[in-house]
């Protein structure tokens, strides 16, 4: 057995995970040819490093786990990127963390550290010039450095250098893991991150979460998705100077996040989810008010989006801007919203379904995007509507679980973790799959915590999208993806 087959939200014994030689594992990865979900190293003592690989078979809803051990003197291996390009960023990260070099890697550059040594791609020519932007950008956003290689107004290539947000999240997770830290990793995906973290901890502690708490988590996740998408629809409108759209979507988003404030005491749902369940119950009065609010949100979003899509000046700016082809999206391993807009139907809510997908009777219609800004605009619009319909179903379903507890009490945090375990949890945040993996040692203490944000796969999508576009369309392309800096930099 070279692979251990498993499902999402499972706990494995470390000893059950196959351990191969790197040469064999590389062959296995290439012959299996599945999408990488995780590819990370862990210090294995005595100078050795163990590499863990998790691949996803999205159609079958299965995960493949395997590993390879590098001896102290093994400092290189033949890279996988040349065979499967989507490994490029994973191999770069592994090299940066452990110094084990993927030989013949075509793009072996820093990921989070050593920014002063970053080797920028350069073009020569009389008309060619460079435009450098950042780390501090013009707006109120996170830091990152962009360098454009331009000919006149046309972008030939964009190089993105990140790492400014690196706060040592994964190291802190080992010494002081908490729901609050999970919420602060990526502040626009509070619910997705905290759900993934809580699920990991619950699997480690062997705790079951009540149906009611699961539903409230799911509700919050869809509210988060709807809120951010509405906000980003507004931001896209703002970037094409259609200010009516920016204003209307802006105030509509406020309705959603203020409902979240009513549910949890925070506009982004901080403090709502805890290991073992949720902290706040929803009474009938709150639900009643929320149903009315969401009905208005649905109407307003629908009205404004349709107004925009009918407007020819809007369409001329959205259509065929920042296009990503389906082939490129598959090849480069993009995930989540960015991939769906390019025609790759990846959605871990449906690929790795929990029981609620069936019980709530949630249907997923393929989107068939063509990969331009217009597709991403329409996808967000579609997903807002889908989320609002799921929210309605959850409110209905919650009535059945009125008397259930919402959490397992405070003492759950002091329960011991399973020993020598490997736990994986994937949650579909609004950007795409948020992957949390935790390993424990012989005493049950966390020995490795790995987080993969969808942006980690997707930053390259932005570089590809702006090629052959005017440089002035960059903000529009950027906002249509709205990738996370802090989720990538950790």
């Amino acid at each position, binding site marked *: 057995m070279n692979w251990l087959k498993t499902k999402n939200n499972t706990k494995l014994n470390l000893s059950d995970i196959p351990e191969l030689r790197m040469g064999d594992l590389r062959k296995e990865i290439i012959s299996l040819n599945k999408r990488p979900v995780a590819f990370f190293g862990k210090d294995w003592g005595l100078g050795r490093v163990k590499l863990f690989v998790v691949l996803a078979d999205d159609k079958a809803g299965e995960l493949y786990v395997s590993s390879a051990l590098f001896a102290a003197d093994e400092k290189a291996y033949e890279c996988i990127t040349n065979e499967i390009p989507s490994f490029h960023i994973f191999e770069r990260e592994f090299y940066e963390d452990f110094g084990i070099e993927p030989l013949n890697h075509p793009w072996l550059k820093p990921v989070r550290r050593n920014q002063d040594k970053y080797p920028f791609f350069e073009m020569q020519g009389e008309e060619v010039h460079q435009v450098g932007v950042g*780390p501090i950008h013009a707006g*109120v956003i996170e830091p990152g450095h962009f360098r454009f290689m331009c000919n006149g107004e046309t972008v030939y290539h964009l190089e993105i250098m990140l790492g*400014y947000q690196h706060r040592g999240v994964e190291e802190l997770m080992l010494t002081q893991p908490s729901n609050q830290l999970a919420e602060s990793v990526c*502040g626009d995906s509070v619910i997705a991150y905290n759900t993934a973290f809580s699920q990991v901890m619950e699997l480690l502690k062997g705790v079951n979460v009540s149906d009611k708490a699961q539903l409230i988590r799911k509700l919050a996740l869809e509210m988060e998705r709807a809120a951010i998408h509405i906000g980003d629809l507004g931001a896209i409108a703002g970037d094409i100077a259609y200010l009516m759209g920016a204003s209307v979507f802006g105030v509509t988003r406020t309705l959603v996040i203020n409902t979240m404030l009513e549910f949890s005491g925070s506009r982004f749902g901080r403090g709502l989810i805890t290991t073992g369940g949720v902290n706040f119950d929803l009474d009938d009065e709150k639900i009643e008010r929320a149903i009315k609010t969401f009905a208005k949100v649905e109407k307003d979003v629908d009205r404004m989006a349709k107004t925009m899509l009918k407007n020819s000046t809007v369409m001329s700016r959205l259509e065929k801007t920042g296009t990503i082809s389906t082939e490129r999206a598959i090849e480069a391993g993009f995930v989540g919203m960015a991939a769906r807009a390019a025609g790759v139907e990846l959605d871990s809510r449906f690929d790795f379904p929990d029981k609620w997908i069936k019980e709530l009777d949630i249907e997923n219609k393929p989107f068939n995007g063509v990969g331009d800004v217009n597709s991403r605009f329409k996808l967000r619009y579609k997903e807002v509507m889908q989320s609002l319909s799921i929210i309605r179903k959850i409110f209905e379903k919650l009535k059945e679980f009125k008397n259930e507890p919402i959490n397992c009490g405070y003492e759950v945090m002091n329960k011991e973790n399973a020993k020598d375990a490997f736990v994986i949890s994937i949650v579909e945040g609004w950007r795409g799959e948020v992957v949390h993996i935790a390993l424990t040692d012989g005493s049950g203490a966390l020995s490795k915590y790995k987080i993969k944000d969808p942006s980690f796969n997707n930053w390259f999508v932005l570089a590809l999208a702006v090629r052959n576009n005017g440089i002035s369309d960059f903000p529009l392309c950027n906002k249509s993806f709205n990738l996370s800096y802090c989720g990538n930099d950790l």
Partner: protein
Amino acid sequence: MFDTLKSRIYQGQQFIKDIENAPMREQFRGLPVLKNACGQDLTKCAQACPTGALSLEPLSIDMGKCTFCGACQNVCKNVCNSDAISFSNSYKLSATSADRLIITENMTKEEFEKTAIKVRKEITSIFSKSLKLRQVSAGGCNGCEMELNACSNCNFDMGRFGIDFVASPRHADGIVITGPVTKNMAYALEDCYKSVPAPKIVIVCGACAISGGIYQNSTEIDREFFEKHPVDLYIPGCPVHPLTFINGVLGLIRK
């Protein structure tokens, strides 16, 4: 075009008229209220705090560290059966010195608001009618950044008070810092500060920026900036609510 106009009429006006007395939902976790009348043992509450903001000797909460997660309140209510720790929905939390952020037992909202912001004439005389700010995210998680963006939306409309975010530090009167200041951003932050023409002010926004917050023990942060430069306004929150931000800044530049 007619559809756009129709939308405009349908939406009407939605700005908050009186921003200083805007109503807030009761669930909002704002100014902490501490009163341990029965003298109960609150050790477990303090253990639940992820940032060490809650101290017991004497009972106090440092809002500069507090993430307003409500964990201490939950434990207090469910484990200790006490209402010694709770959070009011008061959103005016800003202060001009870090010491003022420490809320002690029996401190009332009025008491806090009266003493929190010390008005300085050199600031009010120059910036009271127009304040342009350059925001620097130095490891912020995008929570505070989204709320700062929300300050300029149709609901809060900060621009009407002459407060705006600008693109260049050269155009700015001061900087707003979010995030714990990562090592990788320390240089850019320093550079940005130097580029702002004097007289300038520094506003720190959110638990991470004020004290390092949840990241205070990280080895990847570098808070030397705060040893070198004075801070004019501390705005607590995790993330900072737009009403907290706007009222904090107004408190600093007006009166």
